[in-house]
């Protein structure tokens, strides 16, 4: 029977697969996701496994696909996720896929390198165009500048504007003649211009002349693709040596030099040539980009399904690597864990796999095993979250009682005791309900935020916590720290004006029928308590007592669950020596305590006909009674008609004495009984001798090494039992007190809520006049934000944590072992999800 009561029966099975059908069978099993393979070659290096070549090919394909994905993402092309799940392709299709990816990669690489070369060319031509434009300005300027020079030298007649060579004009008059000035023109990064100029000045000792002009528009650097600002420069020099020096410095500063004709006519011709070439280049560039875009778009359509296929192939070969090769029958042997109820389904899947590949059917047979199988809980979307809470502490041992079933109700309930507020419960319920209602669209959307994923994963827990909190909010009669009066309070104030005026505080007497009706408020706390000055005194007593009651119920339930564990595993000794003394100990002390609480609640009260001994004034303190009981104090007293009694019922003294004695006997019972019986049993076995084989195994043993049997050393058993006993006895007191956190947190929540109302909202409410309306508008927003952030989120998280602790420590320590390991089936779904998450993390 598959249920959450205890984990499922898992069998170790051996699988004989023919070589041809191995791939398809594993593919079918992967789709099914019910089989956990064991690694039969644990000491084999990853590089020595049989299918390492195929895995390597898969890695290559994955790399190519990732390269394609990067290029697609760079061009911001949307990749559609059709959501379909392609099947793992056959090995022969793998070759086709490889060839396809290779072709795509090469094409893309070629297009990219072509584009880069074209861009470089484009850059050079653009720079040349700028140079031609700017040097025009230089040469014009020089024409205007030199009249000053000529006048200075006293020759005004030499100038003729543009007809005289510029270089001639630059020379001083004496030097005019056969000496010609040379010049180089080029482009350099704007940042480097200043140091370039300085270097030129120093290296050529001031004998060169630099003019530069900035290029206004940024140019695209072909390698990095980013925009840079450059400047055009032109350097004039005289002589070959300076020319060499200037060229070297230009190369050092990585300035690109261009041949620039001197004559303006030549320059104009060159500019036109450059323009036409630029236009041609532009067309070619845009065509290249279009081609690249088309290639990427067609790849983007299939990229996702290719990626899934490659991942599946890789997963299949990883699993195949774990199998043993059976050379005799040309097959593969696999060992796997399969849940027993699913054996039929697995057989069907294997049959499908062998049919697809058309070979002999696979053989599945069960093995016996000594080591414990993995723990498998079959969960659905609702129970998975609660099972996850339990598994975080420790995975259940194989076939142990599963605490998750009970957690579904006890967790939200204990949370609600600490969180009890109708208003905050409504907020939490609405949030949980929205997440559950919009489950499908929200789960498809892949959100990166870890916090959102945690909240969404626990949506059912949040919904349940919210609804339970609404219930406890009604019981505590607390809505954002105000009470609801739905049924009419049972308390009334009958005093006249003078009494009220003369007394600061009046205590309403429940004995007077005009002050207390005699019947309590039907559901929950009477709304008048909200206005009472001694509200906390009353609530403290109430909440502490119910915390202890719930705690002891929870712990007794845990102990009783251990009985089911003992019976299932046939541990009769444990039932006798652990379960019974534990139950007796807890009952005699702590269940009796809760009984006292109930007796006090029922018997003692205020009223007109109540005898003196049962009035609230005479009610004995339960704590004192308990302490006196354990210390064996107290005495039988004479009961007069007008005196209070320390006892709640007749014979209490003797009954309590007996209970303490029984509880004290339980301690050595827990400590000594089990080691004694084990000792006797081992002695008997030693006397009978080690003869007698354990019984022939009908099923073949597993090929894996077997774990050694448990140690039956007496000292170990005694120590273990001692620890267990001390833990239980001391734990019973400390855990019972630990449940008082239910009271503490609920008090803190109520007080926090009251403070928030009093310190924030009251300011808006008690503002005089109509400005209060506008003040309320803003103050309400502040109050609402603080309510959500502090009271719902922070307190909710805090109460969640405390409830979790109560479950993990106080409840589960009574019966839970938690030493198992989880059943992790070979499932494509989980592998694909894991791969997706690593991809999103890497981004």
């Amino acid at each position, binding site marked *: 029977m598959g249920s959450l009561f205890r984990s499922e029966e898992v069998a170790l099975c051996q699988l004989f697969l023919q070589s041809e059908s191995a791939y398809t069978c594993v593919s079918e099993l992967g789709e099914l996701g019910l089989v956990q393979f064991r690694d039969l070659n644990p000491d084999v290096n990853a590089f020595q496994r049989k299918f390492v070549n195929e895995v390597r090919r898969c890695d290559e394909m994955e790399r190519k696909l990732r390269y394609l994905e990067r290029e697609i993402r760079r061009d911001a092309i949307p990749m559609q996720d059709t959501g379909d799940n392609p099947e793992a392709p056959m090995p022969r299709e793998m070759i086709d896929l490889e060839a396809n990816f290779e072709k795509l990669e090469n094409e893309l690489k070629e297009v990219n390198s072509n584009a880069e070369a074209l861009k470089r060319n484009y850059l050079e031509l653009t720079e040349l165009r700028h140079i031609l434009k700017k040097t025009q300005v230089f040469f014009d300027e020089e024409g205007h500048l030199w009249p000053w020079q000529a006048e200075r030298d006293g020759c005004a007649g030499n100038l003729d504007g543009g007809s005289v060579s510029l270089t001639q004009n630059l020379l001083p008059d004496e030097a005019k003649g056969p000496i010609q000035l040379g010049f180089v023109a080029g482009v350099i990064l704007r940042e480097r211009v200043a140091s370039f100029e300085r270097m030129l000045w120093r290296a050529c000792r001031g004998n060169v002349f630099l003019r530069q002009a900035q290029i206004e528009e940024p140019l695209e650097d072909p390698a990095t693709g980013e925009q840079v600002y450059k400047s055009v420069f032109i350097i004039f020099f005289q002589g070959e040596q300076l020319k060499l020096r200037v060229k070297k410095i230009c190369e050092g500063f990585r300035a690109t030099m261009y041949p620039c004709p001197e004559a303006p006519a030549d320059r104009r011709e060159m500019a036109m040539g450059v323009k036409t070439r630029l236009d041609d280049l532009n067309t070619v560039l845009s065509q290249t980009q279009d081609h690249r875009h088309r290639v990427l778009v067609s790849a983007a359509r299939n990229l996702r399904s290719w990626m899934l296929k490659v991942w599946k192939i890789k997963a299949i070969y990883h699993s195949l690597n774990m199998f043993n090769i059976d050379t005799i029958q040309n097959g593969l042997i696999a060992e796997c864990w399969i849940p027993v109820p699913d054996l039929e389904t697995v057989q069907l899947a294997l049959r499908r796999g062998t049919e697809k590949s058309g070979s002999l059917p696979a053989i599945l047979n069960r093995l016996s095993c000594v080591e414990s199988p993995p723990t498998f809980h079959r969960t659905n979307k609702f129970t998975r979250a609660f099972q996850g809470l339990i598994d975080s502490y420790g995975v259940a041992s194989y076939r142990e009682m599963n605490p998750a079933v009970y957690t579904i109700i006890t967790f939200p309930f204990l949370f609600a005791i600490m969180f009890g507020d109708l208003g905050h419960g409504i907020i939490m319920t609405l949030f949980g309900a929205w997440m559950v209602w919009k489950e499908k669209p929200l789960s498809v959307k892949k959100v990166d935020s870890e916090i959102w994923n945690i909240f969404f994963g626990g949506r059912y827990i949040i919904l349940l916590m919210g609804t339970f909190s609404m219930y406890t909010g009604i019981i505590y009669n607390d809505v954002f720290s105000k009470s609801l009066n739905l049924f009419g309070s049972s308390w009334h104030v009958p005093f006249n004006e003078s009494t009220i005026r003369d007394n600061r505080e009046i205590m309403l007497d429940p004995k007077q029928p005009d002050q207390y009706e005699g019947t309590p408020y039907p559901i929950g706390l009477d709304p008048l308590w909200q206005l009472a000055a001694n509200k906390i005194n009353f609530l403290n007593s109430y909440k502490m007592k119910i915390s202890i009651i719930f705690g002891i119920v929870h712990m007794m339930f845990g102990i009783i669950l251990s009985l089911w564990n003992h019976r299932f595993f046939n541990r009769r000794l444990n039932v006798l020596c652990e379960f019974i003394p534990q139950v007796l100990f807890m009952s005699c002390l702590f269940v009796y305590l809760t009984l006292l609480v109930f007796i006090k609640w029922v018997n003692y009260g205020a009223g007109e006909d109540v005898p003196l001994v049962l009035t609230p004034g005479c009610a004995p303190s339960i704590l004192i009674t308990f302490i006196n009981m354990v210390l064996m104090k107290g005495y039988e007293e004479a009961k007069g008609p007008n005196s209070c009694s320390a006892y709640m019922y007749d014979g209490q003294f003797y009954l309590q004495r007996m209970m303490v004695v029984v509880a004290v006997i339980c301690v050595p019972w827990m400590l000594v009984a089990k080691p004694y019986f084990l000792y006797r049993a081992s002695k008997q076995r030693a006397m009978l001798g080690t003869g007698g084989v354990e019984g022939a195994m009908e099923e073949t043993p597993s090929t894996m090494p077997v774990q050694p049997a448990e140690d039956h050393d007496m000292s170990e058993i005694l120590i273990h039992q001692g620890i267990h006993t001390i833990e239980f006895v001391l734990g019973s007191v400390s855990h019972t007190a630990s449940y008082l956190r239910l009271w503490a947190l609920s008090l803190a929540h109520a007080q926090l809520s009251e403070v928030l109302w009093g310190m924030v909202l009251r300011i808006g409410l*008690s503002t005089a006049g109509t400005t209060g309306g*506008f003040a*309320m508008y803003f103050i309400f927003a502040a109050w609402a934000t603080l309510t959500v952030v502090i009271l719902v989120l922070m307190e909710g998280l805090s109460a969640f944590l405390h409830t979790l602790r109560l479950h993990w420590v106080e409840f589960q320590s009574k019966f839970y072992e938690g030493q198992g390991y989880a059943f992790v089936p070979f499932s494509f779904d989980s592998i694909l999800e894991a791969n997706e998450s690593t991809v999103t993390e890497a981004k």
Partner: protein
Amino acid sequence: MKFCGPKLSLCCTILSVWGIIQLGIMGILFYIKSPAFLEDLFIPENATEPAAYIDAMEKSFSQIALNCWIATALYGGTFVLSGWQMWLNFKK
């Protein structure tokens, strides 16, 4: 036209709905003089005589009820505004 992002408009819409509901109900409760709100009233210092005190209480109840309804109306306006922004943000 759009001056709020999607998150701000969503938050403001939810806050406005909550404000309308809660302030509306609180206004009604103040109007019927619910004693749960006794400590939230504004009683001026000089009202020491019982008659004056009760009078101040009743006046305060009505005033605060009016204030709550003003705030409800303001949140109604905010709801329209942020709802419009939300519609602008989320229409595809």
